[in-house]
């Protein structure tokens, strides 16, 4: 793993107007466009690729996340970077007709795939679709009971700003749940995971979506994402209380939770 750049991506903007796009250093204003290109490219086969890459385990990670949401009928939920709507679907059943779920994503291709999928499955009435940037949410203060972000935070340019925005739009007592790839402390698992993500993932991407580069970015962006303790600290700095995280699959993924005081 010696070829991994050593940098702390939690302070991406400290070095002037540059940030990370995978292992590359790019201008801050360019990252959003580059991430958008990746997701425009993979949107159509996003679900299939998720199932293949994780052997279906991403469904178990999301299932675990749902257990911590504490969503009740009538609640307002924001599923930011909700992509193809896996969590939105579950929230829609839980909040009922009196509640509301907002499926938001910065990428219109992903949002369209998510909207079509939910409508095809018969979900309507309590779901709104919003194209939104996590760093500048188009919602009023204290609007939501729960915010979830599954596998989206690592693609955000200014993660601290996004966390502050989540804090702003959450109601007091509301909770933020961020499910994201993280760091495993098991050296064997870490090695196997590194080999898998840098050799198998781009190959699968090439075969299924004819786009190896997007999946190379996925592997690199996972490496550059802050570890569990760093992200917990970022939650606290953004104003969240009772911050905690739960490792899943040996720490390959972690679920972070914070409450707005």
């Amino acid at each position, binding site marked *: 793993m010696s070829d991994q750049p050593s940098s702390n991506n939690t302070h991406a903007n400290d070095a002037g107007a540059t940030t990370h796009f995978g292992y590359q250093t790019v201008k801050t204003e360019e990252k959003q466009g580059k991430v958008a290109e990746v997701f425009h490219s993979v949107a159509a086969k996003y679900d299939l690729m998720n199932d293949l890459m994780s052997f279906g385990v991403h469904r178990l*990670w999301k299932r*675990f996340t749902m257990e911590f949401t*504490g969503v009740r009928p009538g609640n307002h939920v924001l599923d930011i970077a909700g992509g193809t709507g896996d969590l939105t679907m579950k929230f829609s*059943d839980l909040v009922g007709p009196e509640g509301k779920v907002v499926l938001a994503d910065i990428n219109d291709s992903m949002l369209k795939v998510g909207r079509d999928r939910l409508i095809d499955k*018969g979900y309507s009435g309590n779901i709104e679709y919003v194209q939104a940037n996590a760093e500048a949410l188009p919602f009023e203060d204290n609007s939501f009971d729960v915010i979830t972000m599954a596998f989206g935070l690592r693609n955000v340019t200014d993660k601290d700003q996004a966390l502050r925005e989540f804090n702003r739009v959450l109601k007091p007592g509301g909770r933020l749940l961020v499910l994201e790839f993280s760091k495993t402390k098991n050296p064997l698992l870490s090695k196997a995971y590194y080999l898998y993500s840098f050799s198998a993932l781009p190959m699968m991407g090439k075969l299924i979506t004819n786009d190896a580069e997007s999946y190379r970015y996925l592997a690199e962006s996972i490496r550059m994402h802050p570890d569990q303790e760093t992200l917990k600290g970022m939650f606290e700095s953004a104003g969240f209380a009772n911050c905690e995280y739960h490792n*899943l699959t040996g720490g390959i993924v972690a679920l972070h939770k914070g409450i707005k005081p």
Partner: protein
Amino acid sequence: MDSTLIQAGLASAETIINQALNYDPATQQKMAKLAPKRLAIEITKPAFSVYIRFCAEGTNGVQGVQLMSHFEGEADASLSGELNAFINVATSKDKHAALMQSDLHIRGSSQLALGLADLMNDLNIDWEAMIAKLTGPVVAHVIGKQARGLFGQLKKMGEKFQDDVVSYVRDERQMAAHELEGEDQFRQIHQLRLSVDRLEARIQKLATKLH
């Protein structure tokens, strides 16, 4: 244990239970009436908790139960105790009575816990219909007939084995008292306990008078 493995186990169990309930519509409907209540099963030895959420039909057609390893908030009812006690209740013929007499501790709505025990008593899954979906009705009937015969024989063998063990332990080895003797003994102990309680109350009354 890693939470992913626990989730895998719960997801599989949930699918099996809900699939099986599709073949007992009466129980499925009764269970849907318990929605959206939550029951906590807290096993103390080995320490493990499962939360059962009863679901009415949602948009995606899920009806039955949802199993969770974690629940935010208070469950409507909880059953806690050792794994053995849960197994005893689950395998007894009258689950309602077994639950009442068991060492399991019920908190919250006892009606919910007892309601579930009643549902399990009435559970009557049409296994033949389940097999018929895979093999067709003729093959399913033959398999069903053979299986019923086999289960009947196994049940008889089990009952005979139990009788033989009881007779060996009680009559031949004289290691245990007869059921009637035992009941008489327990009745006497109960009477003695009541008498001791009464005596204790009288002594306390006298002590209060003296002071």
